[in-house]
């Protein structure tokens, strides 16, 4: 612990007060006036303080310990030592614990008793000490690279990657078929599924156009079931448009569009147009 180095600096600023103390007092003070940064938090400080009681951690007097801690904090305050908030929180809590331990239990009061709280604190101290001892035992073990050693020239395991290629008879047949057609082989039916041809559109429109005495959006000629799927809708729209042009060319219909992107409309050409 970094107690010693900071002791001196602390003591210099501590001057006057020390002069008033007896030697014994001063010794005690020196033991406690330490660099707060040297502690790993309030629990660590409590553990250090508990050592002065020189008893089994299970038999420690929490009351006495609380008083020691409070004295320490008091002293640090006199030294105008900046204490971290958690040290002060612990001080407040210990003051509360002290009062609980000293006063007869108030039956109306909720929450754990002073004894329970003290027991838990004792447990925490014991556990922290146990972990420190365990850490020390761990670090004292024979260690790799210090006491025992691994192979000095490890041999690398060479990774041999073997790639095997494979193909199926179907791959072979498809490959050959592709060559014989000079075109990418694609299943036929899938392709035609969402294609609406102009011939089909023409046939459909010829049947319906007789009823189109008024201007009608060509989109109303899309076959049933082709309006929703975007692929089908595109194909049917294109085919219907092409069929409309064809009908216009044949002189069967008039076709118009009021502006760009406006609906394209057709109307039957009839007697009144002659």
């Amino acid at each position, binding site marked *: 612990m970094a107690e010693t180095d900071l002791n001196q600096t602390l003591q210099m600023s501590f001057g006057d007060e020390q002069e008033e103390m007896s030697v014994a007092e001063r010794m005690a003070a020196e033991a406690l006036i330490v660099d707060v940064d040297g502690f790993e*938090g309030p*629990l*660590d400080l409590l553990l250090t303080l508990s050592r002065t009681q020189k008893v089994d951690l299970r038999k420690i007097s929490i009351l006495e310990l609380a008083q020691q801690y409070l004295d320490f904090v008091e002293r640090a305050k006199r030294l105008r030592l900046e204490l971290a908030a958690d040290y002060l929180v612990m001080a407040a809590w210990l003051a509360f614990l002290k009062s609980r331990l000293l006063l007869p239990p108030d039956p109306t009061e909720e929450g754990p008793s002073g004894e329970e709280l003290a027991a838990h604190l004792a447990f925490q101290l014991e556990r922290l000490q146990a972990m420190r001892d365990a850490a020390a*035992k761990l670090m004292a*073990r024979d260690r790799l690279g210090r006491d*025992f*050693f691994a192979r000095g020239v490890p041999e690398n395991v060479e990774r041999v990657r073997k790639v095997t290629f494979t193909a199926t008879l179907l791959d072979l047949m498809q490959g050959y078929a592709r060559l014989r057609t000079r075109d990418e082989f694609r299943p036929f039916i899938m392709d035609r599924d969402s294609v609406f041809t102009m011939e089909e559109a023409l046939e459909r429109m010829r049947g319906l156009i007789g009823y189109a005495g008024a201007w009608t959006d060509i989109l109303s000629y899309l076959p049933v079931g082709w309006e929703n799927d975007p692929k089908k809708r595109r194909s049917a729209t294109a085919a219907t448009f092409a069929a409309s042009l064809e009908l216009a060319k044949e002189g069967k219909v008039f076709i118009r569009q009021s502006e760009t992107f406006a609906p394209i409309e057709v109307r039957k050409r009839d007697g009144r147009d002659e």
Partner: protein
Amino acid sequence: MSDDINASEPEAEVVEQVVEQEESLFEAPPVAEQERMCEAILFASAEPVTVKEMNDRMPHGCDAAEALVHLRKRYEGRGVHVVKVGDAWAMRTAADLGFLMQKETVETRKLSRAAVETLAIIAYHQPVTRAEIEEIRGVSVSRGTVDQLLEMEWIRFGRRKMTPGRPVTFVVTQSFLDHFGLSSPRDLPGLKELRAAGLLENRPPPGTIPLGVNSDEDDDGMVIDDGQSEMFED
């Protein structure tokens, strides 16, 4: 220490042989030969090697686990030992001969007290959350401390705790076991005594105790210690 191997061997062998009869045209090499193979594999590697990896590298039908039993015995009392490191095996020089080795080894960064304590807490309480570590140490754990241990590959993230917030846990690694010459976390010094004394329990504090840790997190993590006991029970 090798009970776990012996225990599972008989069945393993039966399975192996059945598979073999179907799959392999060649008989597995004799056990003495398998032992040589394990010896060469372990000898050549600075890192521990798992039984599975050995089996993968050895010819079909070999049983590295069995060969290891023989190999280990052969190296008993020698200048080099066959040691178990977690699920894996390694060859290491005998610790009593450390004085012979040139101390040219790179001086490892000295671990801070905080790092050493954090490491011990993780080893003994694993899987453990950051909040639990803080509860035990009574002080918040700095990022740097955990990062250093992660970087040294002595700890790694374990599975998340099934508590509110699902906090991550830390566990020790194979490198940790290797470094400290432990064949399993169960071999940690004093583990049994600590457990018997109840010092590895996560005892919830009566009411709220302000031990420098954000207590809300504590409540989450604290309740459970199944994971920890699981880890060490066999």
